[in-house]
């Protein structure tokens, strides 16, 4: 009994997935940077690190929601780019911000309906929308430029209720993610549908009377919504529109989710793992920048870490 609780805490035989390997690497990286780098433990770097990590954490939460369903969303990066392009249009922020989310909801609906009704594989469906949405973003803003309304810049870089804005919004968005995934009926049904998929019992969730198709579409809408939030965050930071700003985020978010122990086969995963995964990715990037490693080497190291961490997850012993 006791042992089971300990195992579950470390993600063994649990539905959360194994996140301890990623956490160990985070701790090791922090220790290493504290010892080796004088620039790491400065307020300036901490603020940088947080600002770098936030968009990835946000987009990874949305990505995790579709991955728990045994899906995948490759269109998130394009949605982020489109968001910055829309925000850099001429117009009132009170019109542009709703427009951003309207666009995201449309992308999510197209993804979800293509998967559910047309039976397109999630990778193909979201790969298609990735191209479509990127094209629209490039039509709106062929090269980086323009300016984002001050309102957006203020809410992202200023402070809210005396708390630095990234910290405040971080807590709000993570709280929202927790509520969706671990504190709602929808979240539980995500695991049910994904678990049925992973264990080859495709009809089981349906037999329980779950509205599986509606839940799948909703998951893709939520994923696109989180991508729009992440895009909003970046737009506030760079204060302009950039059609290539999201290009790395589709694969980076999947990497963060996988490092955090969420299984791409569906049904196993959790918010804390995903956040740990996203933080690890940002911390590594930050550390490697401080160490002046070349961008090419950084990419290679990211790959090694991904393989290592997922290899250490002892996937067989997990919930499925």
């Amino acid at each position, binding site marked *: 009994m006791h042992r089971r609780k300990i195992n579950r805490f470390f993600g063994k035989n*649990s539905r959360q997935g194994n996140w301890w390997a990623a956490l160990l690497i985070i701790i090791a990286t922090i220790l290493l940077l504290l010892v080796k780098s004088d620039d790491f433990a400065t307020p300036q770097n901490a603020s940088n690190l947080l600002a770098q990590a936030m968009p990835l954490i946000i987009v990874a939460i949305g990505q995790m929601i579709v991955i728990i369903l045994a899906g995948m969303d490759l269109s998130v990066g394009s949605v982020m780019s489109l968001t910055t392009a829309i925000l850099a249009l001429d117009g009132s922020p009170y019109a542009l911000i709703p427009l951003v989310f309207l666009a995201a909801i449309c992308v999510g609906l197209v993804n979800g309906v293509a998967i559910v009704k047309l039976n397109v594989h999630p990778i193909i469906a979201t790969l298609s929308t990735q191209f479509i949405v990127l094209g629209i973003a490039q039509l709106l803003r062929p090269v980086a430029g323009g300016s984002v309304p001050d309102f957006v810049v203020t809410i992202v870089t200023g402070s809210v209720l005396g708390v630095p804005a990234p910290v405040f919004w971080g807590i709000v968005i993570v709280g929202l993610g927790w509520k969706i995934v671990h*504190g709602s009926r929808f979240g539980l049904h995500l*695991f049910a549908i*994904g678990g*049925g998929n992973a264990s080859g*019992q495709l009809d089981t969730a349906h037999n329980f009377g779950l509205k599986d198709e509606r839940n799948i579409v909703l998951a893709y809408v939520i994923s696109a919504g989180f991508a729009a939030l992440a895009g909003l965050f970046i737009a506030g930071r760079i204060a302009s529109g950039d059609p290539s700003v999201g290009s790395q985020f589709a694969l980076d978010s999947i990497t963060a989710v996988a490092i955090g122990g969420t299984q791409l086969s569906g049904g196993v995963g959790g918010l804390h793992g995903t956040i740990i995964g996203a933080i690890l990715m940002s911390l590594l990037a930050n550390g490697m920048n401080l160490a002046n490693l070349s961008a090419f080497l950084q990419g290679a190291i990211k790959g090694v870490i991904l393989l290592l961490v997922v290899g250490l997850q002892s996937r067989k012993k997990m*919930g499925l």
Partner: protein
Amino acid sequence: MLPAVTFKGVTKHFGPTLAVNDISFEIRPGRVHALMGENGAGKSTLMKILAGVHQPDAGKIAIAGRQVCFANPSQALAAGVSTVFQELSLLPNLSITENMFLGKEIMGRFGSPHRAEMAQRTKEALSELGMSLDPNTLVSELSIAQRQFVEIAHGIKADAQVFILDEPTAALNAADVQVLNARIEKLKAKGKAIVYISHRMDEIFAICDDVTIMKDGAHVATQSLSDLTPERLITLMVGRELNDLFPDRARDLGPVRLSCQDLRLTPEASPLSFDLHSGEILGLAGLEGQGQSEIVRSMIGQYAANSGKVRIGSQTVLLPVTASAGVRNMQQLSLGFVPEDRKEEGLLLGAAIRENIGIGLQSARPGFKPLAKVADVTRRIMADLNIKAGSSTTPVGTLSGGNQQKVLLGRYLASDMDILIIEEPTRGVDIGAKVEIYRLLRELAQRGMAILVLSRETVELIGLCDRLLVVHDRKIVSELAGAEASEHNILNAALTS
């Protein structure tokens, strides 16, 4: 007293086939009602109609006198019909509680599920079955037996009045079957109606009160089991007597094909030896779990025996053999092994019949020189074994249990094996297919094959085998000729050893 379930003229078509044809009978509360018939007789379809998976084309169903019409299984459960299907229907990555309340969660404040309340109710439902599992345990951590009990608890929680158990014992060992039977008695004492589907005759007579027999989608009879004998029941099911099920025994035996010498399963066990002759069907009998399956599995390297040797022809294999080499080596010595769990260990369910039969031939060949004539071989085997399927490219998973078993046998036939070891040759197979498989095994023996059979069904071993070895406590305690064996003297030999 109102009947728990009343079927009245229930009819269901699937395309042009009539699966259930004008069925009318009643199931009474506080009784265990067996539903019997060959596979394809329509009993599973009828139960799926009752459980809300299918909707009838015509006819009426009443639960406790009230007419019902279910669109899906969760509506049926809400109306008091709980089903434990053959295919497991719990989600492995959810806890017991979450499975029990899935789709009907109790909600607490702020739109969050009320976990404590649900866990408490789950605990109560489990304890009614005498189980003290932690309701937060993931289903993936439970044994098959526990999962089935959880499904029954699911029905108890929903206050079901009718429990449908579709082959509940197919995956259980003897001890778990005992526990299940005790729990069925408990439900019965509470006035619940239980529908019990099984192919095991002894179980039916041990726990059921009434029986309904179906054949080809139609109703044959509904009567009290105390008025029936097993022979009479089989006659009603297939229109044949029990003796007709089994082919004649071998007249004379050929030379020794396989000789197992001084096999010790564990260091403490006393050695055992036996010979298997060409043209013979030899059975390993005895109580369950006494080492029968370890004996055969140690020969193919899936159980690490302590010591021993197996002589096949001029070759001698020293035991233990490693798992990776075992089956392949034995195949080269033309020994085929048909495992008990054909879905898990034997067949590739998603692959075509042709691939499943061909794989035995292909695996004996170099990787880049596959055999081209698999289609011809498959056609011949399918005709020989009377495998009923649309074509040789039909996925095996869509076939009935009997046809699946024949495909598996066909694989070894295609490879011209001299020796065949079969575990549970007719597990989950209906009577009609059983007869065919018995006849087939006898034909193979007559052609000179040596066959070793393991089965939980003693009647089957007695009817089929020429010779029986009674295994008890990891040794052979008695040898009986098939013609002289009876359930009584096998049990006697096992228990007085």
